[in-house]
């Protein structure tokens, strides 16, 4: 037992490096790296490179003149980061972004799980419904932005018309600042197809015998869901929780199309819809404050890292991985 424990201990750095290099004596290692080379190249050139560049730009006065080469790029220290603190719109945009994320992520997860559970029980027409529910996911985000304004118009929108059938006077979703973000959240639920498919796969993978055993022990459906289903699909829930949170914090296209793009027909550029990435985009490409926009990007990156790290720490208590010890 002791010897087994010894054999699984982590090797020291030098030993590990030697082992890593020794693998290159095998042909399949070269083949494997050749296959991932395009991705590595893409990552370095299109992700890591721009990230490092934006970190540099965030410490400079980078703008139109510097882009065009008319003036040298000057180091300005933490000036752009100090401006983050004094800019009232940065605070507004962060508040809006968190508000949207905190509401939209649980809503999307709950609805996607509900749909997945219904689909998992379907015997006939399951393929049809799976496709039907997934279809909105491939709707272009720009179309969703436009659709939002049509569906949620306070006077003639379909949403208020339907509410009216039940005697509920609908709010002015696209013009009332109190309702702009809730309408965006509701609209975001439109694209839960991807999350639903992940949950469906996870639900199908839960061994049937666990339910049978629970039923024999007298567990009712709710208890089975709570004590069998949820723990067994918790890795999928955790994965989507992380991915949806990051996507929520980076929300851009739908909001920009609806409220900030040319020809937007909602309240023109309302503060209530000003998401962090929208403000970042405007600073960069409408006002040409590239250095400040880069600082905004890094602020958001740090926030996402902290939120994700927090989610990982908390997940240790809730996520159950099959095959794990203990």
């Amino acid at each position, binding site marked *: 037992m002791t010897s087994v424990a010894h054999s699984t201990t982590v090797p020291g750095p030098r030993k590990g490096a030697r082992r890593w290099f020794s693998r290159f004596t095998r042909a399949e290692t070269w083949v494997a790296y050749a296959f991932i080379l395009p991705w590595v190249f893409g990552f370095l050139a299109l992700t890591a490179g721009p990230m490092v560049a934006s970190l540099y730009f965030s410490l400079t006065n980078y*703008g*139109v*003149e510097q*882009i*065009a*080469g*008319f*003036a040298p790029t000057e180091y300005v220290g933490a000036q752009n980061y100090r401006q983050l603190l004094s*800019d*009232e*719109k940065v605070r507004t945009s962060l508040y809006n972004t968190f508000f949207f994320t905190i509401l939209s992520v649980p809503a999307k997860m709950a609805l996607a799980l509900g749909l997945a559970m219904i689909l998992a029980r379907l015997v006939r027409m399951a393929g049809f419904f799976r496709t039907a529910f997934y279809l909105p996911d491939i709707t272009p985000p720009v179309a969703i932005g436009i659709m939002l*304004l049509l569906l949620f*118009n*306070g*006077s*003639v929108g379909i949403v208020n018309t339907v509410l009216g059938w039940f005697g509920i*006077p609908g*709010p*002015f979703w*696209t*013009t*009332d*600042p109190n309702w702009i973000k809730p309408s965006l959240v509701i609209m975001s639920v439109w694209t839960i197809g991807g999350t639903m498919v992940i949950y469906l796969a996870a639900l199908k993978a839960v061994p049937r015998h666990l339910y049978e055993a629970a039923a024999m022990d007298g567990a009712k459906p709710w208890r089975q869901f709570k004590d069998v289903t949820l723990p067994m699909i918790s890795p999928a829930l955790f994965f989507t929780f992380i991915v949806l949170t990051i996507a929520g914090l980076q929300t851009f296209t739908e909001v920009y199309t609806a409220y900030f793009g040319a020809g937007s*027909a*909602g*309240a*023109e*550029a*309302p*503060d*209530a819809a000003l998401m962090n990435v929208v403000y970042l985009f*405007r600073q960069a*490409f*409408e*006002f*040409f*404050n590239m250095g400040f926009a880069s600082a905004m990007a890094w602020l958001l990156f740090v926030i996402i890292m902290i939120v994700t790290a927090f989610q990982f720490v908390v997940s240790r208590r809730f996520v159950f991985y099959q095959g794990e010890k203990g």
Partner: protein
Amino acid sequence: MAGRWKGRALLVAAAALLGLTAASAAGAQPAATSSSSAALAGTLNIYGFGPGDDVANGRAEFATRSLGSGVTVNNPRGGFNDQAFLAMLASRNVPDVVYLSRASVGTYAAKRAFVPLTSCIRSERIDLKQYRAAALREVTYKGQVYALPEFTNQITLIVNNEVARQAGVNPADIQTTNWRKLRAANKKMLRIEDGKVTRIGFDPKIPEFFPLWVKWFGADIVSKDGLTPRLNSREAVAALEFTHSLIRDHGGWDRFKAFRDTWDFFGRQNQVARNQVGAWPMESWYYNVMADNSPGVDITAKFFTNRRGGPITFFQGNGWAIPRGAKNPGLACKWMKAMTSVDAWMTVAKNRFDLRKRQGREFTGLYTANARADVKIYQDIFQPMGRKQFDEAVVKLVQASKYGFAVPVSPAGAEIKQAYIDAINRVLAGQQTPRASLNQAQREAVAAIRRNR
């Protein structure tokens, strides 16, 4: 001694020659324009223009012809996009001439992305007096002209006579000089049914036309040199308070905007045809939309007047500029001169008039930044075509051009505009008072100018 003097004279002559050569080299970039009579050759790359209507395309054909057969005009149609233009600047591969909103010219000029047109104007003998002074000021930064202006899009009041009649409003009370009377007319004309707006009385068109309402007092939202924003001036606050009150009369911005979003603005069932609005200030091109789609509407065009009763109008529009680093600035200069020339405007105006006449439709005029072209179009081409409301509107629009102003050019023009738009939206949404909101806008505008000057 004589030899020494001879030597000095030679030295002076050589220095003078060198100086002349240097001077001509300094002006060499746009001086490619000087060979007016020589046969032209090369490729002119355009960015930001088209796809346009008959007026735009007709002038493009005119300008292409004026360059001669040796020049290839490359125009990948599509509007000006800042992001795409930045990419062009970054790649050091800029077009020869760009077509963009005049409101953006100052920002690019301040960042040296455009070249001043001084040499172009001199070498092509472009007479700046032909352009409307306000439109030209909009593209003049630190005393140098950076673009040639096209349309002016002057604003007049469009009064829906049918709505005024139904509401028992005297059309004379629908004016902007007396705000008390205007508000009373607004209240009479608007209609709210079951808590929903079904007719707008008077739409002040804010935030878009906010500078026009501030100009009512004779004030501007930014100083003449473009470096001092005046977004929270007494006049600006009063203008916002009044225009907001016109919207509040409808039950608030929510109801007002939600209803306005339902209009078929460019269609046959537009807001005038359906009596969904009493009156509102609007740009000149909208008369053409109504003449095409609902020629039977009963409207009256009126001046937007200031507090003393004098007409004022707000110019906005596009212009042509040459980016720094353009390979063919000479061709670009000739192109923009031709596009904004009297002859180009006359050619397309005549074609449009003939076309409209054949179709039995109204010709509602062309309103350009070229004052001479406007006069000639009105005197030589325009003829009343039988629909009194449009014929009278043309007369009003021609007169209105004389009273135009534009927001002074500023290195932070885009940010100043955004600051007041955001401020007005906060007020409309009930989040801030006009004063508090414009104070915030002023802080944002000051910071923007500090960053960009």
